[in-house]
């Protein structure tokens, strides 16, 4: 009955070994590196490894490491070996994130910067990378402004914008759950924009908002929110909370028996959250940014196998974010035939990901005007477990990224290139 989701020692030890090896390499004064012959290309990752976002952070790291191994097996970047420099940005301390970014850029001279899960940290890091002119890929930071009002010429983002998720989710919510929605929204930019996008999408389909509440980040007890939501008599309570908040909210909602009286659903959902829920709470209509079970889609099974061997678990969307971000660096350099950030950024505009990297039914590509990756969105419902105990999401359909993406004008991005 209990899910054995304790990660096997191999996964942890691998990360630890990798981190220690990376750290040991740090200590070597520069002349030793030169003696090795080829100066490696360095990719710097500043992401949470401790705190609230440790779990997705480690999954992103696993994806990055797999990509590094694959890139090196294929000859590296421009003929040079690639190395990953990992730094813990912590889950919420912007000062540390900025500090680590500068460390990676100025002391370690990384050619690329990756990060951050926490949107605020991602924005802070983007300012550093922009100031220093380093190509920066954001794997899993969701605030819209990263490819919207705060976009930069050197910053690209892999994970979906809230508009994409909202547009994909709204149809399903109306069909499966009903028209009267009550929102429980986490009180930060991601939550606000996701709710706004959903309201807009719902309105087009005849959906109405019977109520909405902002919950402080890190709320542990959602009972008072659920009491209020239930009193408004909606068809569905739309949970926009993420991570631990999602686990707490859903767990409590199901304990209250609310799943028997109305629908519980939302937009973005993650495998990490579903794994943390007891089986009876793995319910509801959601969208995933990427899912591991894609029968018939080439290369996905190999990717799943490789990650399973590495970590003992299936890849999550986070793993895919890390994987794609790292590969993006290699692709950019290959396309530009140089490590110059401006040339690489220009080469990435409009670039289509090859299927063994995109790992989705439709071709994923980076939109030129705002540097947002446009890729498929997986629409479906959570389930307690299929044939595979890790199959916790039943994909009903896969929406094409370009069909659900908002327009560049809506995002408000105006790229300013260096002269």
């Amino acid at each position: 009955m209990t899910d054995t989701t304790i990660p096997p020692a191999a996964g942890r030890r691998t990360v630890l070994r990798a981190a220690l090896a990376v750290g040991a390499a740090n200590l070597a004064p520069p002349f030793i590196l030169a003696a090795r012959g080829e100066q490696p290309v360095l990719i710097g990752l500043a992401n949470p490894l401790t705190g609230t976002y440790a779990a997705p952070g480690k999954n992103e790291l696993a994806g990055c490491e797999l990509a590094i191994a694959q890139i090196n097996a294929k000859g590296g970047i421009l003929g040079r070996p690639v190395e990953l420099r990992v730094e813990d940005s912590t889950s919420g301390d912007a000062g540390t994130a900025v500090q680590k970014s500068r460390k990676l850029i100025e002391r370690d001279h990384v050619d690329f910067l990756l990060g951050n899960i926490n949107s605020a940290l991602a924005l802070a890091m983007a300012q550093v990378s922009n100031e220093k002119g380093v190509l920066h890929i954001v794997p899993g930071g969701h605030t819209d402004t990263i490819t919207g009002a705060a976009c930069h010429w050197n910053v690209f983002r892999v994970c979906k914008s809230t508009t994409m998720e909202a547009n994909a989710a709204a149809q399903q919510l109306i069909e499966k759950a009903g028209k009267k929605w009550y929102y429980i929204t986490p009180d930060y930019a991601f939550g606000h924009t996701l709710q706004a996008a959903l309201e807009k999408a719902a309105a087009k389909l005849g959906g109405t908002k019977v109520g909405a509440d902002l919950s402080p980040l890190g709320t542990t007890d959602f009972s008072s929110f659920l009491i209020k939501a239930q009193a408004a008599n909606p068809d569905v309570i739309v949970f926009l909370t993420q991570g631990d908040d999602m686990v707490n909210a859903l767990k409590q909602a199901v304990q209250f028996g609310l799943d028997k009286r109305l629908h519980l659903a939302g937009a973005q959902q993650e495998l990490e959250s579903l794994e943390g829920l007891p089986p009876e709470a793995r319910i509801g209509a959601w969208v995933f940014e990427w899912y591991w079970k894609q029968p018939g889609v080439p290369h996905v099974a190999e990717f799943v196998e490789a990650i399973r061997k590495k970590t003992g678990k299936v890849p999550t969307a986070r793993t895919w974010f890390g994987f794609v971000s790292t590969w993006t660096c290699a692709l950019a350099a290959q396309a530009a035939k140089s490590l110059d950030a401006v040339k690489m950024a220009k080469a990435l505009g409009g670039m289509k990901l090859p299927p063994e990297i995109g790992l989705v039914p439709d071709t994923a590509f980076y939109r030129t005007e705002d540097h947002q990756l446009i890729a498929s969105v997986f629409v479906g419902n959570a389930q307690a477990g299929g044939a595979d105990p890790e199959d916790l999401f039943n994909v009903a359909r896969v929406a094409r990224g370009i069909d659900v993406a908002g327009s560049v004008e809506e995002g408000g991005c105006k790229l300013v290139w260096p002269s």
Partner: protein
Amino acid sequence: MLQLILFNVFNGLIVGAFYALMALGLSLILNLSGVINFAHGGFLALGAYLAYSLMPFVGFWGALLLAPLATAALGLVVERLLIRPLYGRDPLYSLLLTFGLAYILEDAARFIWGAQSLPYPIPSWLTRPLSTQFFFLTGYRLFMVVLVALAVGALFFILSRTRLGMRIRAGTLDLETVSALGVNVRVLRNLNFGLGIYLAGLAGVLAAGMLGLQPTIGTSLIMPSFVAIIVGGLGSLPGTLLGGLLIGVASGLTTVFFPSASEAVIFAMMGLVLLVRPRGLLGEEGRLQ
């Protein structure tokens, strides 16, 4: 609207009972030893994780029984080795030490059990709500209130009827005299600390049923516990109990009118109490100056 308010008051008392449990352990340790135990959340997490690991072997009830005891045992060891050398020094040093201990406990939990949130199964007959009207009154929450009531009852029984309890109460008022009267103060402090940690461990096992089980499960509960102690009054255990309940109710009621402030309101409450009546609702004048 009235129903909404009433429901939230009712529910707030339930949530408050949980806060009170955590705060009581913290209060016990603070009152007798003057130690600000920043690691209390870490012990809560440890209790939850130990219960998770024990469950496959002893079941839900066995885990509920054993995990807090195991946590308390660790608490006794920690007190003997790490806290005892600090008595007589500025309380800020115990703050720094327990702060470091909190780091260690959180990291250990992440290292041993992983960062991923773990599902904690509770018996199905407990998870059902008891009535459709009062749907927030689930079997589990009622069970939790009963357990907290039992624990609080047992605590007050120990404190008022046993020799240990009497010594703890006396020690809270005047430790020097108690020592002069021949009581082994070292053992007293040790057992008192263990008792406080037992309550933290118990709170942890209960929390695992309600919240997601991940390494930072205790860190967000530390501040509300301090607030409960201040609001209720330093040095008064009934005050801490009252403080916990008040926090639960205040937070719940705020959700009705201004949900995004439901966390900030407890600090506003504390600020108000400190400005108007610093000794707290049931505290005595002049505690811990």
